[in-house]
């Protein structure tokens, strides 16, 4: 029996380890949003939000402190931070399209072996949304997907070929799930880390394409 699955905050924490000092990072809606809370004090990481914020602070949970005029792309109120800048939507995407985003963290319904991203139509729905995710997937220097490793029926979400229409082809660099960290490389998918209590074989069993197990396979660090 495999170990427990990580919760969303732990997935976010693992993704946030990729952020380096001085980077500009965009966090998608859902799991990625939580990354903002896992920046070590010795790093300055700036966050970009599609609606035109650069360098905002934490997500505000107290309605008393919330300012409707300072929201992130998920329409959550955020706190201001020294050095923050506000731009309009066109300039916000000049930032994205111009390649100024170092890391984009997005959710996904499926990721293919080649790094194709499918996150615009929710399985079972007819109508999809693109939001700012397509621009981010095409234009960020590095794309990290955070998601559960399998769907509600326990079917793999890392697949040979996406079954729903893709948002962007060959764009994902790293996949962080509730049981593994998988890197998309030219050689194929490399299993870099497994969640505590999980083996490479157990992760492979829940993954459609073949995983290349890294010789330095580690346990997902949660600090």
């Amino acid at each position: 029996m495999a170990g427990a699955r990580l919760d969303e905050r732990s997935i976010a924490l693992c993704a946030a380890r990729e952020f380096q000092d001085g980077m500009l990072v965009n966090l998608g809606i859902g799991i990625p949003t939580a990354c903002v809370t896992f920046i070590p004090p010795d790093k300055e990481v700036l966050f970009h939000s599609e609606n035109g914020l650069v360098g905002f602070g934490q997500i505000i949970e107290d309605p008393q402190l919330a300012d409707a005029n300072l929201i992130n792309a998920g329409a959550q109120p955020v706190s201001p931070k020294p050095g923050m800048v506000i731009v309009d939507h066109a300039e916000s995407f000049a930032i994205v399209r111009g390649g100024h985003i170092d890391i984009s963290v997005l959710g996904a319904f499926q990721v293919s072996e080649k790094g194709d991203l499918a996150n615009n139509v929710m399985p079972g729905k007819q109508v999809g949304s693109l939001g700012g995710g397509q621009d981010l997937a095409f234009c960020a220097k590095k794309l990290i997907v955070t998601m559960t490793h399998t769907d509600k029926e326990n079917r793999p979400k890392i697949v040979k070929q996406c079954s729903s229409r893709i948002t962007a082809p060959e764009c994902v660099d790293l996949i962080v799930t509730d049981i593994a960290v998988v890197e998309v490389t030219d050689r194929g998918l490399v299993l870099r880390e497994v969640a505590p209590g999980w083996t490479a074989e157990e992760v492979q069993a829940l993954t459609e394409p073949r995983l290349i197990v890294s010789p330095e396979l580690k346990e997902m660090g949660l600090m």
Partner: protein
Amino acid sequence: MINKIVNTFDEAVSGIKEGAKLLIASFGGPAECPSYLIAALARTGIKNLTVVSNSGGWGTEFMEAIRTRMSSVLTFPPDFYDLGLLVERGQLTKGILAVPAAIGRIHTPFEKKVMNGEVELELVGQGTIAEGIRAARAGIAAFYTPTGVGTFVAEGKEVREFDGRKYLLEHAIKGDASLIRAHKADRYGNLTYRGSARTFNATMAGASTVTIAEVDEVVELGELDPEQIVTPGIYVQRVVVRPREPRPWDKPM
């Protein structure tokens, strides 16, 4: 004398015709949506509108549920009316949107109409919508963006390589009218915004034949710092001030 201030919302949206293409700002939060202009448009009952926006809106029913049954850190004021109001009233024929679908299993009014075949959807990413609108304001007919190549978005569109990378040809998105919300205005139509409410509001100003701004306050000419004005008044044709007390959408004002 230049004076772009009009007295009523009904006057502000006058002249918008059946079949018009409208750029309607808003992002998704309570503070950056031109609710009273949308309400005035709902009162006209004008049909066959094509609307360019971020989302298709929640509409009145969902908004009521969000207000009363869902816990939310942000509260939506009673006079928050979004694009969903026009959708519910059957005024839309087409939406050019980035976020038409609700997250999760629920369906927005717009989604339902798309599923029923009553409304056409052109799904476009935020960057391409924003750039297309900016292009309209800036007199650029079309532009090559890397976003969307090799996906459903590229269907029927030209793909061209520049410096070894593939780009998609996208066109300017010009409206008959832009409906936006701003913070302060002067009689020239110069505008400032508040915080993240700048978003599509500033982008859409000047991208239509007529730009109509719903503002919190009109100040004396000269009170706005020339370096801090975000939207030059030359992009704005009409300015109308929001009421101090919330008003129901269906009451002429």
